[in-house]
């Protein structure tokens, strides 16, 4: 047989220059083949034409911290519309000197969220912390106890209101959604039908119709003299809406459970509630954490719709500022700012969700 034994050469042969290093990267990623090269050139041109003028408008020519008149005279972006109205945009009609309270409430929320990121901390103490935290947040906003001046809910607004609607929305919608999902699987015909009708009905209609329903129709459902405040009405609509979507998400998790789990629980002698509480739900809910976070992101975005029923969330406070003659005409800047806030919130949540998905699929 011919000898094909390799003599291990001592000198290290380098790969061709055009395939490594910065040049290699550029060639491989931007200019491999004539089509990609043409694409790169066209794209760079497009960026030059659009992004550059944008930067000039947004930063170089921009005006910060001045009055509306100065802004109008200047040519660039008027960020003063934000800086001068910062407190109103963020807090709405909440009494000026008491605004430390919603601020504190938001800080508590962010701290809780921060700690909830780490899955190792998902134990009883965290749950209690959340319950206590939510209670304190409500207290801070409402006042009336512990020497805090009471603040009517009609004055709540801005970012705290948006966060309130989202957080309480999801917190209440979650158990409701789980119950609906279980009900949908029930063997009792009436329960099953009721749940299916509810879920399909709510999922088939736009949120706006539910908001209309809650703000206009709920008062009609109640006996004379009983009123619910506006925020509560919107909150209920958001809860009902989100619950239906959570129900579908949970259903996906329940369907992923193998029969073997049910059978094992039965053979130990657990009844229905115990089986669900101790065996099935812990597993099913864990599987669907990523789509659940996705729902939270949607709920956060959907709170912006309360603008249509005239609740002073973050979007509405911004619009109120823009209706002020001094600041009229700077919608772009204002909306870009609010857009950035929403983006930061949603993006960090979706990043977290992706990270979680990776962790969970690795099976730890």
């Amino acid at each position, binding site marked *: *047989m*011919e000898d*094909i*034994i*390799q003599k*291990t*050469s001592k000198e*290290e*042969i380098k*790969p*061709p220059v055009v*395939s*490594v290093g910065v040049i*290699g990267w550029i060639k491989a990623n931007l200019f491999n083949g004539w089509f990609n090269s043409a694409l790169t050139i066209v794209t760079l041109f497009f960026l030059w034409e659009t992004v550059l003028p944008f930067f000039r408008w947004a930063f170089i020519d921009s005006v910060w911290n001045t009055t509306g008149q100065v802004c109008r005279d200047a040519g660039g972006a008027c960020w003063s519309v934000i800086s001068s109205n910062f407190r109103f945009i963020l807090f709405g009609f909440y009494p000026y000197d008491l605004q430390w309270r919603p601020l504190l409430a938001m800080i508590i929320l962010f701290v809780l969220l921060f700690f909830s990121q780490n899955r190792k901390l998902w134990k009883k103490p965290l749950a209690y912390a959340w319950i206590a935290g939510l209670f304190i947040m409500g207290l801070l906003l409402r006042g009336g106890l512990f020497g805090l001046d009471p603040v009517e809910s009609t004055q709540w607004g801005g970012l705290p209101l948006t966060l309130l609607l989202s957080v309480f929305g999801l917190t209440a919608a979650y158990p409701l959604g789980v119950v609906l999902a279980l009900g949908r699987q029930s063997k009792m015909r009436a329960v099953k039908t009721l749940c299916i009708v509810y879920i399909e009905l709510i999922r088939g209609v736009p949120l706006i119709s539910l908001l209309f329903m809650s703000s206009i129709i709920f008062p009609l459902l109640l006996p004379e003299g009983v009123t619910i405040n506006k925020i509560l009405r919107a909150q209920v609509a958001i809860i009902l809406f989100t619950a239906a979507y959570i129900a579908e998400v949970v259903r996906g998790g329940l369907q992923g459970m193998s029969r073997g789990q049910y059978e094992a629980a039965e053979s130990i002698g657990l009844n229905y509630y115990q089986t669900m509480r101790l065996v099935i739900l812990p597993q099913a809910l864990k599987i669907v954490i990523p789509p659940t976070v996705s729902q939270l992101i949607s709920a956060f975005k959907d709170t912006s719709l309360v603008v249509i029923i005239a609740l002073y969330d973050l979007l509405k406070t911004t619009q109120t500022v823009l209706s002020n003659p001094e600041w009229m005409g700077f919608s772009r800047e204002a909306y870009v700012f609010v857009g950035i806030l929403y983006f930061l919130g949603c993006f960090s949540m979706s990043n977290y969700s992706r990270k979680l998905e990776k962790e969970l699929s690795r099976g730890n």
Partner: protein
Amino acid sequence: MDTESSVTTEQTLSDEAIIEIIDMHKWFGDFHVLQGINLTVHKQERIVICGPSGSGKSTLIRCINRLEEHQRGRIVVDGIELTNNIKNIEKVRTEVGMVFQHFNLFPHLSIIENLTLGPIWVRKVPKKEAEETAMYYLEKVHIAEQARKYPGQLSGGQQQRVAIARSLCMNPKVMLFDEPTSALDPEMIKEVLDVMIELAREGMTMIVVSHEMGFAKSVAHRVLFMDFGQIVEGNTPHEFFENPQHDRTKLFLSQILH
């Protein structure tokens, strides 16, 4: 470990080379995955390549049908040189068949549709003729009764046999096997190896990356050992297993042939 009748390897192989690899180098970025490969494969020759994972054996055979691109050196298959010339690449691919570790059958097509896809769209064969060829090869791999089924309905061993038949329908001159039995449950390995042995008996040129040493012993003309991107050693099966020359080869053999 089929020793009932090992395919004769003493017959003189034709001197005609069907694959020539000359001083071939390949890098993945900075990683020198194939370092100066020199290999000549003759018509009807059967080669088994073994070695630790990461040694570049899969990459080597994937370069032969241009699933991977080499940066230096030459590869010539059946007189056609592998360069960036697309026509040449396509010609080579019709002459070289490949069987993958994970079968890669097309799940949305039936078994017979999997087999007729290539002949109909590449060799422009009429449907009836393509189906006849397909049934012929399905008979050969003993799976003709599953022709109308779908890959999802077959076991791993069955799928791999279909994959072999699919490559054969293109009438290749060379068959490449990339760890064909590594993804199979133990009881299904034999059925696939049997098919490969029959193929060998009929004189197909085969390059097989595998750890199935029994197969190598009974069917291969040469066994090559690769490590760190180089062909360290190559010899007849008998010499290879009885008298390994290099320490690395000895180490590897001791690890897999306990």
